[in-house]
């Protein structure tokens, strides 16, 4: 199979870039600034009989760091068979999960070896407000018939935007479901830690937190930022602070699930990517300090599975905002320590996976998701 390639649209003809993949299957990670290239990609792929599946991310990642423009062209085996599935906005999470599982059932029934289950890789539109609940619904139905991993695509400004595509369609409010072979092994790490006292989300609905400790959520968040940074937070600065001081859902085993608040509504409610269950106990989290410690740890986990050829990586946009320039150091540390020969990836807006292999799968923010694969 041909190798992944990075395509900068202005320096090389698209046809030339796509020709090596003629007649095959291709996943495309497209930078948000090149969204207007989708139609060309679709047309050229149709002409070259390439089965296309793609998602738009705020920025792309390579060995050289972050890229505002371009596209990763990732050749896939024919068994990959991704499905772009629309998610009706008015359906609840359980109904959507049931619908997705129904569509996946025939493919799972034909999976050659149930003892070596596939990884269900889900690429959601980040603007879907109940991804965590949909994931729970899928886990209830599919249990250990699959392993779970995934990311959110979309705009870095968290605005609604068609961000998922195949040969014919460019759409929003959808998910791409892919069954990766058993030899893939996704790892997820975030390194956020408990900091402040617990707070109660006294009114939440999906991904919207209206009240914290019976105070309007933004007002409460402002007072927390004032305590930590001696700054008065405005709505315009909100995301800049949110990435350093995210909210977290506390787990009894000491782990936290990160929820980075990304915007404020007119009523002063906070919007997150991913739900906060009703009456959740929230804590303020401390973002990781070291840009290398978690990268080394993650690389170690990857190496335990054997040599990595191409490291496919999704890096939370909020984490990148937090680390700023140092996020490139985290990437290069991870890449170097993993021993991989190539690094492909994108900034993501939410990540699905487990902090430890075989754990209960959850929807995270602020994480790095590595999707490695041992030679099959």
């Amino acid at each position, binding site marked *: 199979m041909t190798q992944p390639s990075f395509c900068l649209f202005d320096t090389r003809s698209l046809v030339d870039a796509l020709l090596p993949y003629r007649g095959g299957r291709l996943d495309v990670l497209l930078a948000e600034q090149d969204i207007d290239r989708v139609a060309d990609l679709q047309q050229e792929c149709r002409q070259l009989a390439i089965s296309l599946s793609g998602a738009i991310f705020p920025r792309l990642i390579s060995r050289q760091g972050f890229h505002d423009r371009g596209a990763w062209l990732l050749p896939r085996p024919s068994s990959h068979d991704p499905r772009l599935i629309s998610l009706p906005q008015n359906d609840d999470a359980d109904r959507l999960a049931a619908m997705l599982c129904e569509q996946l059932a025939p493919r799972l029934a034909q999976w050659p070896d149930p*003892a070596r289950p596939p990884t269900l890789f889900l690429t959601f539109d980040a603007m879907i407000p109940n991804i965590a609940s949909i994931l*729970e619904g899928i*886990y*209830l139905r*599919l*249990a*250990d*018939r699959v392993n779970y991993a995934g990311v959110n695509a979309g705009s870095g400004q968290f605005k609604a935007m068609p961000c998922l595509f195949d040969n014919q369609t460019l759409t929003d409010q959808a998910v791409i479901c892919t069954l990766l072979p058993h030899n893939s092994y996704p790892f997820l790490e975030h390194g956020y830690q*408990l900091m402040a*006292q*617990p707070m*109660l989300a006294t009114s939440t609905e999906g991904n919207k937190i209206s009240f914290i400790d019976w105070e309007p959520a933004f007002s409460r968040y402002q007072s927390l930022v004032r305590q930590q940074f001696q700054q008065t937070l405005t709505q315009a600065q909100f995301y800049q602070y949110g990435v350093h001081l995210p909210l977290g859902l*506390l*787990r*009894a*085993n*000491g*782990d936290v699930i990160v929820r980075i608040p990304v915007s404020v509504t007119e009523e002063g409610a906070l919007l997150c990517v991913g739900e906060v*269950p*009703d*009456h*959740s*106990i929230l*804590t303020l989290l401390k973002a990781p300090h070291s840009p290398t410690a978690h990268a080394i740890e993650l690389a170690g986990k990857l190496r335990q599975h054997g040599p990595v050829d191409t490291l496919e990586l999704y890096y939370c946009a909020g984490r990148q905002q937090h680390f700023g320039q140092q996020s490139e150091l985290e990437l290069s540390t991870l890449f170097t320590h993993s021993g991989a020969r190539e690094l492909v990836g994108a900034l993501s807006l939410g990540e699905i996976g*487990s*902090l*430890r292999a*075989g*754990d*209960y*799968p*959850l929807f995270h923010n602020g994480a790095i998701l590595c999707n490695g694969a041992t030679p099959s």
Partner: protein
Amino acid sequence: MNNDHAMAIVCDLALCIGREVTLDALLTKVLQRFLFHCACPVGLVLQQLPQGEYKIIKAIGDEQLIQQHGQPLVLPAWVSDGEQCTLHGPIPLPGSRPYPFAYRLRIEGGYLMLLLSPRAEQEGEQLCHLFSPILGNLARAIQLCRDSEQLALRQQAELVDMQRFNESLLKAIPIPVFYKDVEGRFISCNPTFTQITGISKAELLGKRVDEILPPEMADEYSQRDMEVLRSKQPQYFEHSLLDRSGHRYQVLNFKDLFYDHQGKVAGIIGALVDITHIKESEQHQRTLLFQTIAALSSAIAHKDPGTAGHERRVHDLALAIGQHLQLPQERLDGLGLAAMVHNIGLLQIPAEILTRPRELRPVEFELIKLHPQAGSDILQQIDFPWPIATIVLQHHENMDGSGYPQGLQSDAICLEARIIRVADSLAAMTAHRPFRRAMSLTDAFAQLARYAGVHYDEQVVNACLAVWQAGYRFTTS
């Protein structure tokens, strides 16, 4: 983890317990939350059976264990008993996936929750202390859900019984029955309805009356429905329908409201009683009655051949006046019969007085004046559906009280008698008698006009004039 964090987790678990009302939803939510907190991928809730075995009543995260739902499961004592809340060592469970570690949480009422992990946990005992305050609440929540579900099952069973009884009742009723919602959409019907109309329950469902009946009939139906809904009183009306073979038949349509469990109007129930035979029988009886009356009337004519045809003329004119006054058909029928026999009392008067070719002496006239009472006496013996005897008794009463036999005034005299009074007078005045010549119509109407409001009802006189002006004429026979 500090005390605040520990309290936060206890609160989180306690809150998730209180939200569900069915056992499966409760166990799903609780297991999901425990798995979330323990980072375990697989959870089981087992219920102890009387023989000591267990059965899985909820499983999450392991397809093979999910498949074992409801199956009896023998657990070794080290798994099911003992005080330890963490288990180390391969847990012997169905399926191929090994679980070297589990949290074992005992729930009052014979339940056991196992949170299974492929990895050995480090903080097991500490987490169990966090969970223990929750388990008592969970036991009560499980019991509440069970009670609630049993109650729901009983209610469901009662509902099914009631539905089946209603279905049997509807099936047993030999007349068509239908019911519809408050918007007028048919909900269902009984088999007899389908048998007679040819419209099945499925075809009827959701349709409005204008989709199954012609517009004029549908309008009346809809108006009756509105009336039932407005008045909340039962309504019934007669109309005709076509059966599945296209034959027209008469029905009496009963409609009433039915109510939901909150006492709110839920729709209209209707029954169609086939009255075709009753109507035909009624018509036959009425025909017989008319024929009998006609025979009686001819008896009068035989007694006084000089007035032959008088009854027919009075009958026809009285009906014309009644129609002009817009009397309903039912009343017109009574008026016609009374007009035919208004002089039946003359049968008791000696024929020579009736046929005497001169003006009557006072004593003879006094005899004649007995005929309304005599006629009434004869007719009272027949059970008419109309007040024929009264009409006949009053047909010589005057509006000013100067008439006979009772000297009644104005409204004390029934309308039918006042009509016959005018029609009788006009017919008599314009007919030849042995003792006088026939009066001209102009003179006769002048007489009517002159005594309008005195002898005659003015409204009736005007109606009589109007029908005449409209072209009405006496028949010559």
